[in-house]
């Protein structure tokens, strides 16, 4: 797999991480002309996507655990360095971020209120996300994590849905902020307790924290991050946030940010405090179970199209946490694949929801109907996303959920039996939307507004759908990478084998 064209010297990860934020700063200096801003933003997003694709293709599955490694001193006195590297788990997530960023920019073409600020904030957000995925330094991970959180407030509050945006934006920001600072305290405790004077996660993982320490701090660190992963009962911010956010931000948010929480919970919580994880996972998996089943139930009851998707994210992210909570390789592989799959899937969902809302000006399911007649490609895309969502074989959701459930079987057989109910619930709410919104009669009130979407929007949907189907049909295109990443961390965490 490894391509030789990658000179060691080019710091791909550094460029990927900093390009968006620098571009965002430069955007602020440009005149606020819509077309110019959009084109520049699209250019930057395209370059970033290409870079992430390069990293993805260049990652050698048979190579070292951490690749594309780069290190720059940052605060040596405190043991902090800008240490970037990707492993098998984070590489696809970097690609995911690239995809969502690219499609998000395209979908945001119609933003006409202060587009300059919009794209700038969005790019800052993107940088934060990239930074978390590639940081091997605990402190830098937090640093980027927080960078990823705060632009959300503005993006939602300014460009969001008028009805709830202030409330939702504030709720989201506070929830995430609380989570992250709680985790930060845990990280500081690790730093001082280890006595290594380093924030390097590879070193900290080998620090042999005492069992008592791990048992005490694991819940803080894990839950602190899992808040962003939408874990019940701290999931409340997420559906509100998703719904209030403008389309591209919902895509980013549900598509990537929630993964950030799960990923950081894995990297910091489970990898650094494995014994704590083994002690506490029995209740984490119960929380995740509530997520999975309860989220799906609530989604069934929603009348707002976007809320359905919002709660479906809660349900699906529960599966990710559940996979991690199994503490075995199958669960981990599945959870990692689910992160990618769900990321692309919700991005696609929110993109389609946005397109429908832009034209119909309503998201109430009873007020919609027959949209499929006007928007063929978005309908097809939504159906594909729906099939992924319900774990239909042949789509990425199945490839992800199957190992998760296998892992759950290994660890907690009874939970697998309960959790699987969510699949039927998911199917029922997805079918409801598909048949009510996209097919059926078109109400007269919205019929006049509906028209087809632009070519570039179709392109964006196509990119997203490609990954959903591709991964479902050829799991080999990504799963071996995840599997290898999981295999490499397995001894560290003491994961159960197959």
């Amino acid at each position, binding site marked *: 797999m490894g391509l030789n064209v990658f000179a060691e010297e080019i710091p791909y990860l550094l460029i990927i991480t900093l390009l968006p*934020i620098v571009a965002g700063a430069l955007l*602020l200096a440009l005149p606020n002309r819509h077309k110019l801003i959009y084109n520049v933003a699209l250019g930057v997003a395209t370059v970033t996507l290409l870079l992430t694709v390069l990293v993805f293709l260049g990652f050698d599955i048979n190579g070292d655990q951490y690749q594309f490694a780069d290190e720059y*001193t*940052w*605060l*040596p*006195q*405190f043991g*902090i360095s800008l240490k970037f590297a990707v492993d098998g788990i984070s590489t696809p997530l970097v690609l995911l971020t690239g995809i969502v960023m690219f499609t998000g920019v395209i979908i945001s073409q119609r933003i006409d209120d*202060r587009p300059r*600020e919009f794209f700038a904030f969005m790019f800052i957000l993107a940088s934060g996300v990239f930074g978390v995925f590639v940081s091997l330094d605990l*402190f830098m991970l*937090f*640093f*980027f994590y*927080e*960078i990823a*959180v*705060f632009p959300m*407030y*503005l993006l939602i*509050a*300014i460009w969001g849905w008028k009805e709830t*945006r*202030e409330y939702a*934006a*504030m709720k989201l*920001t*506070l929830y995430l*902020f*609380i989570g992250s*600072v*709680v985790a*930060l*305290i845990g990280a*500081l*405790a690790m*730093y*001082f307790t280890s006595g290594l004077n380093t924030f390097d996660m590879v070193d900290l993982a080998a620090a042999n924290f005492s069992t008592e320490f791990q048992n005490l701090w694991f819940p803080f660190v894990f839950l602190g991050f899992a808040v962003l992963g939408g874990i019940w009962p701290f999931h409340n911010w997420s559906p509100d946030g998703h719904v209030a956010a403008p389309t591209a931000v919902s895509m980013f948010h549900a598509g990537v940010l929630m993964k950030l929480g799960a990923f950081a919970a894995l990297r910091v919580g489970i990898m650094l405090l494995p014994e704590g994880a083994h002690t506490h996972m029995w209740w984490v998996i119960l929380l995740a179970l509530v997520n999975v089943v309860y989220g799906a139930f609530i989604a069934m009851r929603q009348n707002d199209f976007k809320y359905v998707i919002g709660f479906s994210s809660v349900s699906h992210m529960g599966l990710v946490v559940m996979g991690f909570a199994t503490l075995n390789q199958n669960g981990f592989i599945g959870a990692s694949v689910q992160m990618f799959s769900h990321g692309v899937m919700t991005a696609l969902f929110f993109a389609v929801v946005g397109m429908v809302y832009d034209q119909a000006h309503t998201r109430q399911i009873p007020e919609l109907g027959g949209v499929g007649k006007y928007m063929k490609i978005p309908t097809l895309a939504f159906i594909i996303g729906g099939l992924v969502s319900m774990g239909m074989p042949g789509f990425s959701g199945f490839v992800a959920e199957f190992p998760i459930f296998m892992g759950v079987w290994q660890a907690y057989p009874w939970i697998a039996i309960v959790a699987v109910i969510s699949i039927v619930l998911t199917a029922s709410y997805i079918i409801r939307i598909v048949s009510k919104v996209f097919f059926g009669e078109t109400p007269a009130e919205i019929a006049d507004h509906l028209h087809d979407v632009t070519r570039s929007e179709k392109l964006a949907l196509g990119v997203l759908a490609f990954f959903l189907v591709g991964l479902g049909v050829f799991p080999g295109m990504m799963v071996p990478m995840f599997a290898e990443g999981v295999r490499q961390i397995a001894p560290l965490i003491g994961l159960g084998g197959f």
Partner: protein
Amino acid sequence: MFLTLLPEITLVVLAFVVLTTDLALDRQSRAFLPYLTAAGMLLAVIFTIVFALPGDKPQLIFGGMLRHDWLTFVFRLVFLFGALATVLFSAGWERVARRGEYYVLIITSTLGMMLMGASADLVMLFLAIETTSIPLYILAGFITEDDKSTESGFKYLLFGAMTTAIMLYGFSMLYGFSGSTNLYWIAGALMSGELPFISMMGTVILVMAGFAFKVSMVPFHFWAPDVYEGSPTPIAGFLSTASKAAGFAVIIRVLLTAFPLEAFGGVDWTMMMAIAAALTMSVGNLIALAQTNIKRLLAYSSVAHAGYILMGIAAASELGGLSVVFYIIVYLVTNLAAFGVVAVAERTLGSNDLEAYDGLSRRSPALALVLLISLLSLAGVPPMGGFIAKVLVFAAAVEANMVWLAVVGILNAIVGLYYYLIVLKRVYLFRSEEEDKPVPIPRPSAVALTVCLIAILVFGTIIAPWFDYSGIAAGALF
């Protein structure tokens, strides 16, 4: 010794120059005064860096009254920078821009602060504090035609006088116990272990009263919102940054040198400071929630920030000292920027009510951006300096086994984030009827704001050098 005092001497000279030029110039030309002041201060900065660089060993000068070490050095720069920015903001603030005596008072006060930061002797310390405070009383009430300003000056004076009196009482007891006014001597005397615990703690409390007033620590914070609200806005900024920094400079020096922890054995002042820190940030943040005036909001926020800084002091460790210095540096530029924006906006908006800030981002994107960055830095969001500063004080607390304090800090950080976001919501989200009227930024303010903005971002991203300097400065105490 002459060279090490050169910055102070420069300020004294500058004060005379400004005073005399003021007399010589007509009203129109007096617009030149702030630039003259700024130039002089810049000169003082240069002198500080070039001639007054401390050596490896601390140096006692002025008959042992002053101690010339890295702490002194760093705080000198902090005060000078604060004063410089304040002068630049004042240049665009019409009601004070052309008043020579206004600048003289700022210079004098700055001089006092610089001496505060360097004092190694109780007598010198008291003098320095008064040199700082008296000009500030006047400055706070400088706009005599405004009742609020007058009230503010008078209130400040009364509070100041009272707390200074208590502090002085504490000083006298210290002298009585130890037979010396030199801080380092006092430490030795206390270390002898002959003093009862109750007297030592009592003295700490008495002495702290005066300092606590300076840094607006709860329960000595009542003056802050009223005084900030009434004072000329640049002065409010000055009070909340440089003056507060001076207070902290004294606190860390006095507590860490004159009251060494070893002298107490078991229960010492760290717990007291930790409780004070927790109270200060909680009270500041919670009351800030209810504010509708941006100056009052920033006043309470600055009370809260005093609480965060006290966390570092409560840790009473090298990292704690370092975090305090770092925090002060970052806080200085951040809060200056925030007050700078308020000062600029006030000229056009004509009000300091939060409502007046509706739609500011449409009226002046640049000003809104500065406010955004400074408030987010205050809230502790990366890549702004405030994040690093907060992390460091939290780290100090965790290191000192005060996890509970760090948790209180977290909760406060969240409350803080909330009200900062409320302001930003108005700026970015709300619309107003006057959206088409731009908000011009006077050039000197623009310069100062740009510098602050860059500093905030630099402190938040390229940390290592500042971390080092803070470490060296704090190291002078141990």
